[in-house]
């Protein structure tokens, strides 16, 4: 498949167009890094959703729950093992961060497995019921989060090694944002390699195009479904954990709040397209930070504006996939 460079070029065009508006180079660098970091986190949260939609034609309105659960999982580990982080060494921080992130991914993945198995399996192929059932799941699990972790905001200590910022030229860059960009790029590269260079990826891509054909060739598409769903939920958990550390707090509603942005990203990218999701997430992240600096009142609405513009240009998103 030929890469669609025009849609990809929108990212640098947007970034460069913002430069004269922002006015000063150091501010622009700071904003761009912040935007990319935000975009990477949104991408992690959105990737599972778009892939699940592409492969199984299921739009999971409860995806936000995986984000929240990941955040809470990480928060639990971080607050329990907080003492080890006081040393301020990178090794000490990592010894807490890694279990925290692993807990987030594992918890969200288990939830995803449960969700697919119990709630979504009986309603494949029926969009109306899917939306209703996943909304019901969202209600119940958000309440269960209240039961398990309480309704209060949990403040989250961020490990010392990745807080603070360093100076590059004249621009102050937060360490955490760089870390988020690195993790995001690793995840994206990993997904790209998995989807394009392995047999599993081949099957998944074939499944997105034509599930019946894959099945008739003797592959169990059901197993692929479950695998993708669990992996997507785990990614959402990772994204949620990183988002929580970025915000330095966890609330039961955070998943739902982020989900609106995630939906916008998925629509912009084209339902089912991982590459489109990546581009969409970058655009949303960058635009949110630029408008946050230039016109704070507009910032929250900028996503919607972006979505409308993209849909007027390409009605099915930047990278439309397979079936209409």
């Amino acid at each position: 498949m030929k890469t669609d460079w025009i849609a990809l070029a929108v990212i640098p065009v947007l970034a460069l167009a913002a430069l004269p508006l922002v006015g000063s180079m150091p501010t622009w660098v700071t904003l761009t890094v912040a935007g990319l970091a935000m975009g990477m986190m949104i991408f992690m949260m959105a990737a599972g959703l778009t892939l699940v939609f592409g492969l199984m034609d299921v739009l999971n309105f409860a995806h936000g729950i995986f984000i929240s659960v990941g955040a809470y999982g990480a928060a639990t580990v971080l607050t329990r093992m907080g003492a080890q982080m006081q040393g301020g060494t990178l090794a000490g921080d990592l010894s807490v961060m890694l279990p925290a992130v692993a807990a987030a991914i594992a918890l969200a993945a288990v939830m995803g497995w449960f969700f697919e198995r119990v709630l979504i399996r009986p309603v494949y192929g029926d969009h109306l019921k899917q939306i209703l059932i996943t909304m019901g799941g969202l209600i119940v699990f958000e309440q269960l989060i209240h039961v398990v972790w309480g309704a209060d905001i949990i403040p989250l200590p961020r490990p010392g090694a990745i807080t603070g910022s360093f100076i590059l030229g004249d621009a102050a860059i937060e360490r955490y944002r760089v870390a988020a960009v690195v993790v995001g790029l690793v995840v994206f590269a990993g997904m790209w390699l998995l989807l394009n260079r392995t047999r599993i990826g081949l099957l998944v891509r074939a499944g997105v195009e034509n599930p019946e054909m894959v099945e008739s060739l003797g592959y169990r598409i059901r197993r692929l479904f479950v695998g993708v769903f669990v992996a997507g939920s785990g990614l959402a958990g990772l994204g949620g954990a990183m988002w929580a550390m970025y915000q330095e707090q966890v609330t039961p509603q955070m998943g739902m709040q982020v989900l609106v942005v995630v939906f916008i990203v998925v629509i912009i990218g084209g339902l089912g397209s991982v590459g489109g999701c990546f581009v969409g997430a970058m655009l949303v992240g960058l635009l949110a930070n630029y408008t946050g600096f230039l016109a704070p009142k507009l910032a929250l609405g900028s996503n919607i504006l972006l979505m409308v513009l993209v849909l007027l240009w390409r009605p099915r998103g930047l990278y439309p996939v397979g079936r209409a």
Partner: protein
Amino acid sequence: MKRLLSGDLPRSRVLAAILVLVFLGLVLAPFIFPGTRSLNVAAKVAVFILLVASYDLLLGYTGIVSFAHTMFFGIGGYGVGIAMSKLGAGWGSLSLGISISLVFSLAIALAIGLLSLRVRAIFFAMITLAVASFFQILASQLSELTGGEDGLTFRLPELLRERITAYYVVLAVATVLFLALLRVVNSPFGRVLLSIRENEFRSEAIGYRLVTYRTVANCLAALGATAAGVLYALWLRYTGPDTTLSFNIMIDILLMVVIGGMGTMYGPVLGATLFVVAQNYLQDLMKLASGATAGIPLLPQVLHPDRWLLWLGVLFIVCVYYFPSGIVGRLRR
């Protein structure tokens, strides 16, 4: 009577009895349940019956999921609120506020419908969610106009200040509009909507334009929600994000319509009544249950009064799986 209900009779003795009971309860509420709290509950039931019934026109009859219903509800509320607080408590500003909000709702419903109903139902659901959250942001940002998070408190014309009168105005308008919705779904237009829900491909093949019918349904539902918003604002004499635009209300509406019964106008009546009453009185019951199980681990938290939504959520899922036509479908069996 048959004319009044547009030929759509309850078709079940129990259902008919419950409906009569609900109606009588609402009409006689100021006399048989004295007190501010119960009158508030009764008014909320009346408003939400209209709100949920107009949502059912979309979800149950046309088979499309919208998350922007609270947005239209809010437009009605804010239309009245802004007009009354900026232009003074007269009938002129009241009617101006109502007409502006109705026209505004219609325009937005038309725009959303034409933009996104061409594609798939699932797309519409996502777009409406995004637009609705945009409105929520707008309402909290334009605080000079909307009062921001605090909302708007306003005064009404002399006649509506009397609580009992206000209650009967709300009830009367809600009843008339509900009967109008019943008329719509039992008209030839309503039949076409049903056929689209059942099989869009065939309906299109017969020659009905899907986009047109879906968009008109979306506009009608939006107008119904706006009217409900107007009524609710009139009753509360207040409009704010938490009473109109909040996503929680959208979830409440979904719960009401599914538990009551999709695809019949009587479902929303049962759903809204049950839900609002549960919202106000179930918590007392749960407090007792939570206290009684105090010694056992986890159970008290699960039965905690604030967790009532958990149980309604479980009921919701059970309904979607096993009783897709809700309580009403069950009673009609």
